[in-house]
């Protein structure tokens, strides 16, 4: 084999390898961030559990009603308001702004909770 050809042949795999190496390296993307920090709140026994959840901006909180009585999830500042949720029904809200969001069940107002968005 001619010398130049040999070098060229060797270069290609090295380049390909280099490209592959770069492509495979982990990078932090927006979607990775959100799916790792979405939160779940269980509604059971006339209470929200956990009562306070802390999530980053952009996260989605999902409430699931495990009680045998319908409940609602209503922000005290009018930011979000679920339809009535019967047993096994869910409600989700994505928090796009930082802040502390107090909420309660408008049917059973003694039930209160908080979402802290940082």
């Amino acid at each position, binding site marked *: 084999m001619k010398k130049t050809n040999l070098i060229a042949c060797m270069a290609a795999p090295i380049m390909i390898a280099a490209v592959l190496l770069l492509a495979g390296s982990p990078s932090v993307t927006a979607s990775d961030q959100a799916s790792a920090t979405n939160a779940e709140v269980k509604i059971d*026994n*006339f*209470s929200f559990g956990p009562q306070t959840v802390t999530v980053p901006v952009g996260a989605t909180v999902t409430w699931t009603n495990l*009680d*045998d*009585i*319908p409940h*609602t999830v209503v922000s*005290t500042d009018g930011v979000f308001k679920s339809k*009535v949720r*019967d*047993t096994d029904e869910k409600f989700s809200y994505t928090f796009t702004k930082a802040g502390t969001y*107090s*909420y*309660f069940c*408008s*049917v*059973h*107002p*003694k039930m*209160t909770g908080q979402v802290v968005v940082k």
Partner: protein
Amino acid sequence: MAAKKHDFIDQKLQDLNNDGIDRRGFLKCMAWAGTGLVWTMSGGVPTSRAFAKTADRSAGKGADFSFVQISDSHIGFSKPANPDVTATLQTAINKINAMPHKPDFVIHTGDLSQLSKPSEFDTLDQVLKGASAKQIFFVPGEHDMLSDNGEQYLARYGKGTKGTGWSSFDHKGVHFVGLVNVANLKAGGMGSLGHEQLEWLEDDLKGRSASTPIVLFAHIPLWTIYPDWGWGTDDSEQALSYVKRFGSVTVLNGHIHQIMQKVEGKVSFHTAMSTAFPQPAPGTAPSAGPMKVPAEQLQRVLGITDVNYVVSGRSLAVVDSPLDGSSSAASGDAAPQVLMESEVG
């Protein structure tokens, strides 16, 4: 005879002072499916007896009229605590229809439906159509307010009412007031009447003679039974201050799905059983939700309430009933006062 009655009354009031009605003792004497409470006011003194026991009695004798309270039918509910709430409501209606003295009307103290669905209200209406009493008065429960502040409920049952569904009417000299304490509830709070309704109530009662018997009915109890479970009304004090001057006040509530009674001066408070499912006694369970009992016991913990009024013009045996159980001397005034007597057995 009179002395015996009074001793019994004192004894029962002692029970009330301690922990409300002793449910087990009370229920033991219930023979019946869907037990009810019969209230008879004789000469202005209401007497409540186990309904089943008085079916054959002349409970209505001498009564100017009677009416029945039902509550918490929760049509649409279908869980282990009661898979067929429509059937148990029908049983309650059958019971009303079988009463020897026909009630003039029925009062439903709320939670007609489970989810404020049109189909649920439709089913309720179907069952109620078969009631012998053709007039039915309603106040909503929180379960009836689940669609846009009670839009569905008001469209069907709000005729002649104001605001979120409150109203008053007179019947044979007794003044009835239906109040709504399940709208615009505030986070962390209990039941709420609201400023507008309270103003209306004050105005509604103005100028009425203090000897007019008053009946207030609302879904959530108008006295504080158990705040942790929301069993009370934040601003009921103000409402009760408006009725303070009247000689006889009866407060009928629902919401808690069990009988609780209290007498405070001239005001008698009573909560009704549900026709759908029972709930636990305060603090005896993690929460206030539907309580499952053995199937054969279900009908024993559901019920209706019969209220008989006698408004007589003569001097009445008026008995004050302070909470310590002592009774005061009879007064010669015509204004009927209220004493509650629970006879068990």
